[in-house]
């Protein structure tokens, strides 16, 4: 009786998850029954299922554990139980990457795949391919070729798909099965035909001409399988893009002909391909859009969904064509399928006029709670685009967003809303106060730590500059009382910013910080103590340096510098200047990857270069790497030798890294070096050749130069010549025919060393304060220029920022609409750690006039900048 009760209870608790609490060691223990002399299929099936479930949950086995259980499992081959055997195939696939000597089952599997039992064959093929290494391919080739053309569609498909997987590691071997694949592509079975095309394409993918021939041949054949036709359309569309072809191309004509195909799937695929092509004329577009329009009214929800989703995706690129479907989209707003309705509305929002915004937003509000996060993100993105397009609508959009913020939702969704609010605030000063208010309200009840921390940082940055900063303090201090340590720490930092920027709030802030010094968490206490001491000094320059400006170094660089310091056992004091600086992430980058911004920053390009360069003994005396330029091409594309240059600046040296690629298959290059004709004042300190450069490989040669003492000469143009020893070789083997090579050289394009190469961007949270502080302390240079080639303030701003390589502060790179004057504020560091602040006052009148004021710790640097612009 009691046992019965317990069973009953377990059943209720289990909630349909039979393997909820399984444990690795227990499962491995149970798997020993596989070793028993006579197999018990029922028990073994249960244990193997459990094992597979566990592996699929992400459990990892050590190589020994995996190998043991794998070999135990191979003994199950003695049972002929159908279900068990198919589970064994799955087990082999799962364990093939973890266990050793998995090829032991090769013969057993080839026997199954060629045997009489049809139920075994497809599974055996898939398992076989998962255990076969490139070197073992010949031993199964015969069976695979047979299987590809097998009369059973399941077997043929399994072989084709497996072959496709094998091209990843044995492309050459699989190529030999192309005849069989070509036979399979003629199959009557729609899946086999589709899979065969997939394999043929995979085999030829790298060779555009071969792909083109394949498409030409198959388009004439009129394939039976709609899946294959869809794939052919995709391949054809890709060819059109790659060849830069137009509507005259036979590939395009094929796609167009598919508009009349009897399968809806194919018709849709053709329309999708056309609207996504980069170069389409309005006529071609109209035809494709009218197909999608028709599908918008289709009875099948999948078709409506596909059509509206595609229209949504191309709405920004082809607004005019999509507006043609407005009526149909309006009809879909009330579609019972919420995903379709969402896409319809957001498409209308993307293309619609300002007047329709309110109406559409009201529509969305009626069902936003019913759609999944994924679609909510689509809505948020549409709102962001709208807010940027119609700044006057900010209050109704902002209200909508804040309502969405209050709803349930995952991190990605919430982060996309917060990102959008932040973007709106940054773009539109009028929206700032309301936006911040919404965010304050949101962090009162936010379960995502990373998001709360971000918003607190934003409040610390923006709050002090609002009309009434004090109103934000309460929201921030509430976090200190209620949240986890990382949020409390962020709140402490935010409060300190108010203390540093708003003198009348300082006494209150000090009281709050004093309370925080009693916090139970180390980090929170440390921050509070740190800030409280700095604020007690009442010194604005300290505030600027240690509270308002955050540490702008590359994290990986800092880590490396600290490690070196510890290895040196503190013989010398730690030098912060030796750490490469890194600018704060730009708004544009955050926009592109809102999620990445939440994660740990990856090592920057500079960090990677620094690693690589510090490995060269000749460069170790140069000190830390200051900055690295984007690569510059020094050869035309498609020449015999391809050379690109990356310019690395050190405090006093310039290292030119020449990445060279040898595209001649009958030449081996040796002792590859670049001879530069440096500008005046430069001196060559070292030349590091690349010892050997075989065909199709790239290698790097370096030239180390010392910068001229006279700063203005550092901006210069260098001549460059590639020199090397050629050894002719046999294209087939790549081995040289001769012992002795001959000298040869190759002219490269001139290389420019610019101002930007010697400067790094630096963020200044409070640029104004830094500018004032620099007055008198720094050297100042000023000059006025006429930028005749510029026709707008925006254009001037973009060019100046790019030319000087400095970071715009206080969002001064955004020029408000309709203005004729603008002030651009910039900050950065010159190599050697010299601070640079630049103010550019711009006025639009027949071109742009600019008054440029430079303040820098070093007079020479200030002069260099003013002279470089002129």
């Amino acid at each position, binding site marked *: 009786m009691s046992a019965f009760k317990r069973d009953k209870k377990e059943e209720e608790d289990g909630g349909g998850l039979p393997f909820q609490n399984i444990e690795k060691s227990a499962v491995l223990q149970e798997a020993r029954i596989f*070793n*028993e*002399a*006579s197999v018990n299929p029922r028990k073994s099936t249960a244990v193997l299922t459990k094992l597979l479930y566990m592996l699929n949950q992400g459990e990892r086995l050590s190589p020994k554990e995996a190998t043991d259980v794998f*070999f135990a499992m*191979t*003994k199950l*081959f*003695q049972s002929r139980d159908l279900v068990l055997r198919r589970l064994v195939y799955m087990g082999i696939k799962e364990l093939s990457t973890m266990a050793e*000597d998995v*090829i*032991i*089952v*090769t*013969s*057993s599997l*080839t*026997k199954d795949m060629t045997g009489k039992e049809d139920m075994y064959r497809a599974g055996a093929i898939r398992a076989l391919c998962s255990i076969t290494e490139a070197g*073992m391919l010949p*031993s199964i080739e015969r069976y695979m070729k047979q299987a590809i053309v097998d009369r059973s569609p399941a077997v043929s498909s399994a072989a084709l798909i497996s072959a496709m997987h094998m091209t990843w590691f044995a492309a050459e071997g699989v190529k030999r099965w192309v005849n069989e694949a070509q036979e399979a592509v003629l199959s009557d079975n729609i899946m086999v035909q589709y899979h065969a095309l997939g394999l043929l394409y995979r085999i030829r993918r790298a060779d555009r001409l071969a792909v083109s021939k394949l498409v030409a041949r198959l388009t004439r054949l009129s394939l039976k399988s709609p899946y294959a036709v869809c794939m052919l359309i995709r391949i054809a569309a890709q060819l059109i893009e790659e060849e830069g072809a137009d509507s005259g191309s036979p590939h395009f004509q094929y796609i167009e002909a598919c508009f009349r195909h009897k399968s809806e799937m194919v018709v849709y695929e053709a329309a999708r391909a056309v609207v996504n092509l980069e170069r389409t004329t309005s006529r071609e577009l109209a035809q494709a859009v009218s197909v999608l329009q028709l599908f918008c009214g289709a009875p099948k929800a999948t078709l409506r969904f596909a059509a509206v989703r595609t229209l949504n995706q191309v709405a920004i690129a082809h607004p005019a064509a999509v507006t043609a479907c407005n009526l149909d989209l309006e009809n879909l707003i009330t579609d019972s399928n919420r995903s379709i309705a969402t896409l319809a509305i957001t498409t209308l929002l993307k293309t619609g006029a300002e007047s329709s915004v309110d109406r559409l937003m009201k529509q969305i509000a009626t069902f936003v709670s019913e759609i999944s996060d994924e679609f909510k993100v689509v809505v948020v993105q549409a709102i962001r685009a709208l807010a940027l397009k119609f700044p006057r609508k900010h209050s109704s959009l902002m209200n909508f967003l804040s309502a969405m913020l209050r709803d349930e939702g995952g991190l990605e969704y919430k982060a996309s809303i917060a990102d959008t609010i932040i973007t709106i605030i940054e773009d539109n000063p009028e929206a700032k106060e309301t936006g911040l208010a919404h965010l304050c309200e949101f962090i009162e009840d936010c379960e995502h730590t990373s998001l709360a921390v971000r918003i607190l940082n934003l409040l610390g940055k923006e709050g002090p500059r609002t009309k009434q900063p004090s109103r934000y303090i309460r929201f921030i201090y509430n976090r200190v009382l209620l949240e986890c340590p990382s949020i409390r720490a962020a709140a402490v930092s935010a409060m300190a910013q108010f203390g540093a920027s708003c003198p009348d709030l300082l006494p209150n802030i000090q009281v709050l910080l004093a309370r925080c010094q009693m916090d139970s968490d180390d980090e929170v206490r440390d921050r509070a103590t740190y800030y409280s001491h700095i604020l007690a000094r009442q010194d604005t320059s300290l505030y600027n340096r240690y509270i308002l400006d955050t540490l702008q170094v590359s994290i990986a660089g800092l880590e490396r510098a600290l490690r070196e310091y510890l290895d040196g056992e503190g013989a010398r004091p730690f030098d912060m200047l030796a750490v490469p600086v890194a600018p704060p992430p730009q708004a544009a980058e955050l926009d592109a990857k809102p999620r990445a911004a939440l994660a740990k920053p990856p090592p920057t390009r500079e960090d990677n270069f620094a690693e690589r360069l510090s490995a060269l003994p000749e460069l170790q005396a140069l000190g830390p790497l200051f900055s690295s330029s984007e690569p510059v091409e020094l050869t035309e594309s498609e020449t015999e030798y391809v050379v690109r240059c990356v310019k690395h600046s050190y405090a006093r040296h310039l290292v030119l890294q020449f990445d060279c690629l040898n595209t001649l298959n009958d030449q081996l290059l040796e002792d590859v070096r670049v001879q530069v004709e440096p500008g005046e004042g430069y001196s060559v300190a070292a030349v590091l050749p690349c010892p050997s450069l075989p065909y199709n490989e790239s290698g790097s040669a370096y030239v180390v130069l010392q910068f001229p003492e006279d700063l203005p000469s550092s901006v210069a143009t260098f001549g460059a010549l590639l020199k090397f020893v050629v050894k002719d070789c046999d294209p087939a083997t790549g081995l040289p025919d001769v012992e002795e090579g001959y000298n040869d050289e190759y002219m490269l394009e001139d290389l420019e060393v610019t101002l930007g190469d010697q400067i790094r961007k630096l963020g200044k949270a409070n640029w104004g304060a830094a500018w004032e502080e620099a007055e008198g302390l720094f050297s100042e240079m000023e000059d006025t220029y006429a930028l005749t080639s510029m026709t707008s303030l925006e254009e001037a701003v973009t060019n100046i920022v790019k030319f000087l390589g400095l970071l715009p502060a206080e969002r001064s790179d955004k020029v408000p609409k309709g203005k004729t004057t603008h002030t651009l504020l910039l900050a950065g560091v010159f190599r050697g750690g010299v601070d640079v602040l630049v103010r550019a006052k711009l006025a639009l009148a027949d071109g742009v006039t600019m008054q440029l004021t430079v303040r820098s710790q070093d007079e020479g640097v200030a002069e260099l900048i003013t002279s470089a612009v002129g």
Partner: protein
Amino acid sequence: MGLFQRLANFLGVRKKDVNVLVVGLNNSGKTTVVNSFKSEDDRITDIVPTVGFNVERFQNQNLAFTAFDMSGHGRYRDLWEHYYKNCHGIIFVIDSSDRLRLVVVKEELDLMLQHPDICQKKLPILFFANKMDCKEALSSVKIAAALGLDKIMDKPWHISASNALSGEGLQEGVEWLTQQIREMLSVKS
């Protein structure tokens, strides 16, 4: 499970399942030996070198044999040991015409006999001095001497000269093995 099998189980006349391991160097004829134990219709016509192992079934008297036919290629010999546990007997096939590799055979045999999963047990070992039809084939007596079989004290063993292609000698050997396994099982139970 078919009705007849279930009935047979119920009556206790179910055939006993036993596992045997078939080992030996590559090309000695293991797969051919196992193939000739199978019923006419199940036999395969073209035998290719085994990669890894194959499981085959055959019957002798009322024992149902499951044979693990292992690959004898150098690369796979280390893997035999995974199958030593829980087997009831071993068939060791030797190419009696391959005089050169007889030392390798001895080495592999000794390794196997020393393995912890084998050395403790009283497993019967059946040796086939196979390819007896070849001109240069050594007699089973000479092979037994070359391998030092007389030093195996703790396990029953037997050597038969055989021709796996014609089937000659196989029956005699497998009957001995069946007998041994049957005895072993009855002692245990």
